[in-house]
């Protein structure tokens, strides 16, 4: 990707309510990239303002649930005078295929970007077969 392109603003997308939340506040869908190599599937999500300790990743059956909570105590007592975006928690769900090695999923958070690496199980990796 060349860096010469002008960067455009993308409005944050609010999550449609599929379940009731017990804590007040809005949820947004983080922008995500998904790519695959021979060994692993990588998920990258943008969650600005989320600290490491407030990321919650849960895997239940085939459903990967990623949630990032904003620490809104930083915003306490603030008086907004001009705004262009809203703040809120982030949540997104992904359905995984059977070829992911569930025990070895790793996560990393840098500059508000969460990277999840989902290694493939051995059986799903491509094999080279030589003709004898």
């Amino acid at each position, binding site marked *: *990707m060349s860096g010469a392109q002008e960067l455009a603003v993308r409005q944050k997308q609010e999550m449609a309510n599929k379940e009731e939340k017990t804590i007040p506040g809005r949820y947004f869908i983080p922008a995500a990239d998904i790519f695959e190599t021979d060994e692993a599937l990588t998920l990258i999500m943008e969650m600005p*303002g989320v600290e490491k300790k407030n990321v919650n990743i849960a895997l239940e059956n085939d459903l990967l649930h990623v949630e990032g909570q904003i620490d809104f105590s930083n915003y306490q007592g603030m008086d907004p005078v001009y705004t262009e975006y809203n703040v809120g928690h982030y949540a997104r769900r992904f359905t995984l295929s059977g070829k992911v090695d569930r025990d070895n999923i790793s996560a990393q958070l840098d*500059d*508000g970007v969460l990277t999840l690496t989902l290694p493939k199980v051995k059986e799903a990796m491509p094999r080279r077969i030589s003709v004898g």
Partner: protein
Amino acid sequence: MALFPDPFNTLLGLQEALDAFRTSGWLQSGPSGGGSYPPLNIIRKGDDLVLIAEVPGISKSDLDVQVKGRTIRLAGTKAVKYGENVSLHRRERLAGRFDRSVTLPVEVDADGVKAECRDGILALFLPRAEQDKPRSIKIG
């Protein structure tokens, strides 16, 4: 002065307050380019202002912040990198360069500006210039 006295409802109150000010004409989104990247919020703290922008995936070294008089300039590049030999399934994150100037309605003490960048959030603490502060006048 607390805008949201109930801590449990802090986030909800903040979100509502942010929405209400979304259309405020305080900065007159004309030449200052409302809608440019990065999106930012400006918050008042006493006499001073705090500018907060969401810059996920941009490292400190790729950010250039300049302050002159009433104008703040935010420039930089955002790179989205993928490894070699990958097949992309979904691409929602955007990359590119940005250069945005914002003109504030108050003068800022450029020497006193503090910048903080953590977890993809850039915060600029902009103290109002001493000569620009309002003075209260006693009625004799």
